[in-house]
């Protein structure tokens, strides 16, 4: 059916028009200038990108990268055991187990961050409890600092890490572990030398997802970090709201987007070389 | 015999890959014809071209003297029994069988009558409302056959339908299919790589190799007079004794006889070859005796029956002989 192929067109046209084109416009705007009144005029300039070299913005960049890194590492430490446990469940409990983990993920970041605000604020659950138990005299400033933001990010992104790792573990041929055991490997060694390496693709996928999401976050820092919070996400949000510096905001977004794309391409390259190695191994087997 | 299917000058290419160089084949009405060959020889592709699921790159397909080459499968009066049955999982047995009749807009009461008939024929009456997932392989197999037969197609195409069944069930189904075909007088075109199956069921076997027809004959002729080494090797076991002119003599193991090296009896031909027994392997009804020929790397096989007078042992020296009528000259 010749015209069957056209069925894909409406969706692709829509995405081209409302996804690709806007991005291109943003690229254009990132090279544009801002009038004192906040209008955008298309006078070519590199000034927006040059501002990245200012110490203030470099600091924000590093801060964001650092937060993203810490978030990724901790969600890995929390997520891998969780994924492993689900994968080890009897088969009919695995889908319910997954749904259990994924449900919080679907509830939007705003509500989930707000829940932590209730718990951590100076009149919140934790402080009230500690005060009533007499363990502290003054409420602790648990909220509106970098640690709170990190906590919020970890909380928001943990399911992102769990799902790809679960898929990776589940797809692993369990007989490899039986073979390892048969050849004398104790459980921890088998895990370290067989399971962990073979599930690396899942870990990589989850890490990429968490890292990239964390870079672009502004809801969590905004709600849980307050005015002091300065991550790229908030910076961008600001440019489009209060500061009305769209060209600069666009430049920031493009850098963010390019960073995300680079990471994804790196991941694909790594995946392909891994698959090449794995299929070589399969041929030798 | 009236011609039912004719394939003229069929060539099939997938990209640059030539699967079938050039095939001409005619199948008669009421024949049970088997396309036999190893994996990748093109037999399934040929079958699918008759069904309309593939189109020949060059050539024509005639069904009952009508050119159907460009007709889509749903316009052809043939039906196929698929290799993995392809039963519709969201319909029960009766609905699966009804499907073709529904598509052809057969009147409701005639639908029911034909469905009931075919359910009886394939002994599926009790499973009418079952879903495919709730049935065994053998039962699903019969549903696939029923679903095809109920449409009274001119030709029934079967793509390795018994492959997934265990040995006993397969043997039983082979007989059932054969009886079904005879009883209904339909034309069956059957694809398999199992030579035993082909020999049991077919009126005619077409042995295929790399997209070409090696031999097209009755089972008897194929078995006793293979035309080439390939056919001789593919059907049953064979021993080959190369001759100077590039041809070879093929002798079946059951026709290969062994005698003592020193045997000088005149009741049988003088041994053409001598050798040493290297192995005797138990195979149930027979022992296979492997003999390494003198002055050669070649090992031949002879069958030894449990009630044979002499039971051969490893390392014995033997003479090898056979009757002239049991040898077949084959080309390389």
């Amino acid at each position: 059916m010749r015209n069957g192929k056209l069925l894909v067109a409406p969706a692709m046209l829509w995405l081209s028009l409302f996804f690709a084109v806007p991005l291109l416009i943003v690229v254009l705007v990132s090279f544009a200038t801002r009038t004192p009144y906040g209008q955008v005029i298309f006078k070519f300039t590199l000034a927006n990108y040059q501002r990245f070299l200012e110490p203030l913005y470099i600091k924000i960049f590093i801060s964001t990268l650092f937060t993203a890194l810490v978030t990724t590492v901790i969600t890995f430490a929390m997520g891998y055991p969780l994924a492993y446990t689900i994968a080890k469940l009897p088969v009919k409990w695995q889908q319910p187990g997954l749904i259990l983990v994924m449900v919080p993920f679907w509830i939007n970041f705003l509500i989930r961050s707000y829940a932590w605000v209730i718990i951590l604020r100076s009149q919140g659950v934790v402080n009230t409890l500690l005060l009533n138990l007499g363990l502290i005299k003054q409420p602790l400033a648990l909220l509106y600092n970098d640690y709170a933001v990190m906590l919020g990010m970890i909380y928001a992104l943990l399911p992102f890490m769990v799902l790809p790792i679960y898929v990776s573990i589940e797809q692993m041929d369990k007989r490899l572990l039986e073979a390892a055991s048969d050849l004398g490997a104790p459980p921890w060694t088998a895990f370290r030398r067989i399971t962990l390496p073979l599930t690396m693709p899942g870990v990589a996928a989850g890490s990429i997802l968490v890292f990239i999401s964390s870079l672009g976050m502004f809801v969590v820092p905004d709600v849980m970090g307050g005015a002091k919070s300065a991550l790229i996400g908030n910076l961008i949000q600001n440019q489009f709201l209060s500061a009305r510096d769209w060209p600069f905001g666009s430049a920031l977004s493009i850098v963010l987007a390019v960073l995300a794309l680079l990471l994804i391409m790196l991941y694909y390259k790594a995946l392909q070389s891994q698959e090449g190695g794995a299929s070589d191994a399969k041929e030798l087997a | 015999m009236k011609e039912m299917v004719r394939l003229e000058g069929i060539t099939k290419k997938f990209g640059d890959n030539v699967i079938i160089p050039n095939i001409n084949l005619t199948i008669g009405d009421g024949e049970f014809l088997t396309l036999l060959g190893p994996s990748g020889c093109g037999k399934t592709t040929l079958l699918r071209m008759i069904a309309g699921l593939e189109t020949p790159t060059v050539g024509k397909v005639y069904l009952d003297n009508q050119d159907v080459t460009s007709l889509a499968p749903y316009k052809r009066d043939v039906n196929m029994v698929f290799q993995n049955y392809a039963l519709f999982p969201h319909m029960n047995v009766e609905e699966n069988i009804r499907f073709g009749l529904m598509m052809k807009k057969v009147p409701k009461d005639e639908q029911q009558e034909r469905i009931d008939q075919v359910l009886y024929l394939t002994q599926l009456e009790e499973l009418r409302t079952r879903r495919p997932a709730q049935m065994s392989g053998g039962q699903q197999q019969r549903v696939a056959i029923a679903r095809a037969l109920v449409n009274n197609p001119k030709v029934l195409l079967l793509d390795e339908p018994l492959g997934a069944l265990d040995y006993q069930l397969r043997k039983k189904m082979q007989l059932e299919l054969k009886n079904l075909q005879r009883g209904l007088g339909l034309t069956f075109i059957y694809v398999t790589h199992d030579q035993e199956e082909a020999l049991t069921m077919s009126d005619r076997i077409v042995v295929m190799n790399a997209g070409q027809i090696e031999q097209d004959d009755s089972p008897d002729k194929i078995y006793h007079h293979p035309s080439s080494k390939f056919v001789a090797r593919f059907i049953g076991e064979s021993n080959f004794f190369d001759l100077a002119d590039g041809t070879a003599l093929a002798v079946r193991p059951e026709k290969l006889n062994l005698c003592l090296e020193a045997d000088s009896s005149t009741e049988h031909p003088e041994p053409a070859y001598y050798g040493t027994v290297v192995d005797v392997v138990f195979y149930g009804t027979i022992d296979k005796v492997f003999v390494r020929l003198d002055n050669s790397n070649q090992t031949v096989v002879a069958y030894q029956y449990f009630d044979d007078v002499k039971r051969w042992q490893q390392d014995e020296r033997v003479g090898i002989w056979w009757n002239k009528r049991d040898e077949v000259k084959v080309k390389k």
Partner: protein
Amino acid sequence: MQKSWRDSALLAYALAILAFLYLPLLILALYSFNDSRINAVWSGFTFRWYASLLNNQRVIEALTNSLIIATISTLVTTTLGTMAALALNRYKYKFKGVINGLLYLPILIPEIVMGLSLLVLFSQTGIALGKGTLVVAHITFCISFVIITVGARLEGMRKDLEQAASDLYATPWQTFRYITFPLALPGIIAGALMSFTLSIDDFIISFFVAGPNSTTLPLYIYAMVKRGISPEINALSTCMMCATISLIVISQLLQPQHKSAKK
């Protein structure tokens, strides 16, 4: 494999993390029934915050907006997405790279970038922000999810079923109607539910493209949170959580069981 202390430790750790995931949500829900303005001290059980929601004109308006936008965008994304998934499943395309890019990038690029890019588009082309721009934005970020969800379902479908239907005299349309569509339906419904949920829940993209008179529920919650803590937020959040959870559980149960490719 024998049960060992390792397995128990692992299980305990996993349960602890699950608790970590759910505790905040449960606390939020719990305190939505707290009869006190000053949150953390428990003063008794009450429904009054929920009642006040029902009387809050702005909440009703935000809810209505969210539902309308979600419904329209779900209808459009499901239609466009299913068509695309069917075509991608059946045909080979020359520009696979471009198609994959358009398909996956919306999911991989940070939402904030997509949100502001649409804001830039609308402002530079002079389109006023409002319900319309929200619908367009929601469709844009939901389409990929639908295509992937339906595509996964189609992928798991055996190819020979459509061939069998054709062999049994079904025209291409009949094959689609009686075989392909019924078998793909669970995937289509799952995709639709996912699209609806994503739309109802969306904050970041809506933040950039909503106009002054077109608030959605998440945007309203944000505004309230920024103003200060109030128990109505708890109640509203709890309602949204329950709605989301129900939708997702239904949608996930319709997805095919993850089959491992073991021999």
